[in-house]
């Protein structure tokens, strides 16, 4: 079974802090994604990576950056956390592009105070 793990289930940070969210997948998938999920807004794509060191902006990249130094690991960075970044963050991976199913991690609920 594909397993996608995220470094924390719950995180509380202060405004202005730099925040790192880590995601690891164990099935050699090419693609990895970061989403945030908010009530009434659904899942929104922040960033996508289709290969090591390769990334593409999603729909809401402002205030975020990503890093993919190894194939199995995709990190989301909040450069200076703000209260409007309080959300559920979900990492996902898929084998390839073209409709392959996504495998999601359990999510990190981030609260910025």
């Amino acid at each position, binding site marked *: 079974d594909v397993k996608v793990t995220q470094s924390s289930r719950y995180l509380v940070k202060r405004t202005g802090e730099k925040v790192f969210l880590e995601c690891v997948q164990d099935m050699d998938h090419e693609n990895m*994604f970061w989403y945030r999920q908010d009530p009434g807004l*659904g*899942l929104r794509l922040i960033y996508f990576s289709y290969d090591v060191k390769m990334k*593409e902006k999603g729909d809401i990249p402002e205030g975020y950056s990503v890093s993919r130094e190894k194939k199995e690991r995709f990190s989301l960075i909040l450069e200076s956390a703000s209260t409007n970044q309080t959300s559920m963050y979900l990492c*996902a991976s898929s084998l390839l592009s073209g*409709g392959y199913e996504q495998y*999601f991690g*359990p999510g990190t609920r981030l609260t910025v105070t």
Partner: protein
Amino acid sequence: SQKIEQNSEALNIQEGKTATLTCNYTNYSPAYLQWYRQDPGRGPVFLLLIRENEKEKRKERLKVTFDTTLKQSLFHITASQPADSATYLCALVVSGTYKYIFGTGTRLKVLA
């Protein structure tokens, strides 16, 4: 503008009945449409995929239809059980892109 819509109101049905969930979209040309299940506090789990040239797909008690003329997908759970209670998300994969566009989900509650 581009939109994907699912019924935001919760759907309550009696155990044993068929649950039908709707996913409508506008201004997309999806190559694939997927359905996911999400339980509270957990990540979505993939259920079914249907391609643009397919009308219907089945997997055990699940059935998905895809009508590209109506721009609609229907997701059916037959012989529903309380364990089927969850939020169900549809996702479009747009032709020629990597993007997965998710709906906001419909919460299903199956009453014993």
